[in-house]
């Protein structure tokens, strides 16, 4: 991680965190099911909505730790 400071504005290892949300939402077999429901909402729907929030938090974290 030492070179992350010398590499201003370029590639950083933190950016690999973005891969998680790609895998989580672009692989439908993970979430194409009704159960478990949450307040009556099938898993398919609340899982993807939850990932909107997780991805926003992950992006915010990446922004904060990579900010110059």
């Amino acid at each position, binding site marked *: 991680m030492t070179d992350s400071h010398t590499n201003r504005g370029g590639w950083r290892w933190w950016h690999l965190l973005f891969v998680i949300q790609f895998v989580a939402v672009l*692989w*439908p077999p993970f979430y194409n099911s009704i159960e478990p429901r949450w307040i*009556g909402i*099938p898993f398919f729907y609340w899982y993807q*909505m939850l990932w909107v929030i997780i991805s*926003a938090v992950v992006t915010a974290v990446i*922004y904060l730790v990579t900010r110059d």
Partner: protein
Amino acid sequence: MQDVNWVALTIFVLLFGLITWLGFAAAHWRRGDLDLLHEWGLGGRRFGTIVTWFLVGGDVYTAYTFIAVPALAFGAGAVAFFAVPYTIVIYPFLFLVFPRLWNVCRKHGYITSGDFVRGRFGNRWLALAIAVTGIVATMPYIALQLVGIQVVVGALGISGTGIAADLPLIIAFAVLAAFTYSSGLRAPASIAIVKDILIYITAFAAIIVIPIELGGFGKIFAAVPTQKLLLAVPGPNTTGAYGSYATLALGSALALFLYPHSLTGILSASSSHAIRRNAAMLPGYSFMLGLLALFGFFAIAAGVGKLPEYAAGFKQFGNNFAVPALLLHSFPSWFVGVAFAAIGIGALVPAAIMSIAAANLYTRNIHREFINSNPTDRHESQIAKWVSLIVKVGALVFILFVPTEYAIQLQLLGGIWIIQTLPSVMLGVYTRWFNDWALLLGWACGIGTGTAMAIAVNLKSAYPLALGSWTFPGYIAVYTVILNLVIAAVLTPVFNALSARRAPVDQTAAADYLA
């Protein structure tokens, strides 16, 4: 059609009056010399994090989206939810690629993606291809925004014959054209703030009130036919609905920020930090879009499709009438006025930005490059203002005289076309490795193959790609941009070896891409 809803209509007209005033007053906001193209067409690159959030949000999550995504859920079910993964995976691209593009554009005064490609690869024909693709892909998009206005105007009970039927749309467009001409990008930026407040009020009121009226989410989802609730599980030797769902999300995400209007919104930000912060903040809209997609199911559960008072609306507008019917069914008239105004104004914001973006492209990459290479600043901004008018009139004529279906099909093709600019623009931000003519050929093959594939499947978005005994149904844009990339990569060393001339000069330096 039902009777005119006077209370809702009054609120609707009042709110439209408010934003009309705002659109003209915006000329004085963060005042700049509107005779300069970057002031008129990019708001002087002076929008901070919050204004950029509203502007890009108003740009990406359009009125048509708010009508069409729930309509798809209403008609086809789970597949409509691809809008959620789509609006999740766009933000890593926004975070990584576009701050670099912002930096280089700021440094060199680039206003369009064509300007950047011209500077980076030194090939005006490649820049022309980028500009024409952008303009052609944007036109049907503007036309679709008008469909959003048409649906809510129809739902307010206004109907007529001949010219009277189209009058509300023509008035709305005259207003839009006038304030865009006079205030440039400042108009949609200021209106976007009002529009989004209305949209958020509508969405949150609906997500709380309607499930209570309908007896909870359990009952709502129980009313949806089971085969619509989930994606169909793929059969043997195919990736089936899974493949098309994922590629549709990914391809739409890759295409989104290549659209001229998205880029205009991004380039008008005041710093690359504002863009990065927005990558974390814009998912707020994605969440709302997910809620709105559920409105399609609310409409099924409320049974609006079977109520006689909405039969005429569904007959005229098809499933696009689902959300207006649901709102009419669930809310008092005054709130319907607010909600419909949100959708109507939500059409004007992106339509204004799209016409400005198309005008910037024409002015910089066609007019200045091929017609008059040395215009004065005033002349340049004047051309852009006129082109923004022509583009809007074109969209209006299209929607008045051509069936809506064609606009939808052209918009689908537009997505397949615009993604073909990815190697030059998004990869160009990282590398100058590609040969400019190889990029142009890759672009041409992508456009040609994509159009042919779309026609082969009767203008649907997914093509069943057969490889051996397996079938991979997937979004045509993804398949053809891969082909485009392969061709550009294979031809690059070939063209470099064949060509005795030195590669054209790259105006940009590595440091220009960093803050």
